[in-house]
């Protein structure tokens, strides 16, 4: 219960603006672009659009993120602020083809 209350208290904070927006597409089980450069030290909002008919799971151990995107769906993932560096991500449902890297600089 206390968690639910906590969410309720925090809801007004939702959606406060990220510093940078980035769009990422999934097509034929690949990320486009496969390489994204973002500013270090800023909060980033990634808009992910899945153009495939099948679902995909955006997963990054480096960024500690995990989110399912339905076929023909889109979603928002917040990351950062990141220290400068390279952060890999992948599509867990298609690990053979879906790879990408975010460079913070």
């Amino acid at each position, binding site marked *: *219960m206390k*968690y*639910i209350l906590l*969410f309720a208290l*925090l*809801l007004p*904070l*939702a*959606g*406060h603006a*990220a510093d940078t927006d980035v769009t990422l597409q999934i097509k034929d089980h690949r990320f486009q672009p496969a390489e994204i450069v973002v500013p270090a030290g800023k*909060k980033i*909002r990634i808009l992910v659009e899945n153009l495939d*008919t*099948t*679902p*995909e*799971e955006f997963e990054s*151990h*480096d*960024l*500690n*993120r*995990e*989110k*399912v*995107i*339905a*076929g*023909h*769906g*889109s*979603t*928002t*993932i*917040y990351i*950062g*602020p*990141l*220290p400068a560096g390279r952060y890999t991500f992948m599509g*867990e*449902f*298609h*690990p*053979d083809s879906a790879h990408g890297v975010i460079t913070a600089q």
Partner: protein
Amino acid sequence: MFATAIIIFREVLEASLIIGILAAATREIPGSRRWLLAGILAGLAGAGMVAASTDAIGALADGIGQELFNAIVLGVAVLMLAWHNIWMSSHGAQLAAHAKTLGSEISDGRSECSALLLIVGIAVLREGSETVLFLYGIAASDEGSRSAMLLGGLIGLLGGVAVGYTIYAGLLRLPLRLFFAATGVLVLLLAASMASQAARFLIQADLLPSLGGPVWDSSGILSEQSAMGMLLHSLVGYDSHPAGMQLVFYIGVLVAIAVAMRWVGRVRPAGIAPKAAV
């Protein structure tokens, strides 16, 4: 096929471990097997529904519906695990004392069983919905390797179930007093681990500050993709890049439940279980 087996194994592992630990922890409670089964079936049905409404859930609350859903579901599971452990710390001794003759003497055994149903249902629901989506993706594709991939999925499923069964069978072999201490500690760690995961989803949704990006990066020492990393992640919530807020949730829940268990009392200090006279 191998990659598919690994993916399904990972999804199944966590639910399987939770079921194995709880099946062992509630073995003396009358009727717990039926509730366990009901939880698994309800979880599977729920998984199908959640998978089918992924898009709708994801679109809620400006695109952070999935995180909110996961965090709330995990929060409920944490509360139920806490309830289970606190309940066991007051009834465990009783259960141990007249394990076989107990019958319906424990008046609130029923609410304990509903907690069991919820925990198991939630575990299957969460991990199951991703498995359903993944398998749907395979089934909908027209790749020639479809049957090989489905076979891989089956192998992964059986592998995950086997690990859960192993921990169940292992726990049952323990002497009774050690058994209560061990299941108590495992459930405590599961709760803390789920609280940390809930925090991670709230950070991902930008509802909570991360309190320091990754506090450490131990992926070089123990990757979460390695077998041991996967097992520790599912069992004790190992995270190779935890945010500060995750640690706050993990430790907060761990301490809160442990204190409540002591307070409810008659519980022996976990871990210092005397050599059981069984």
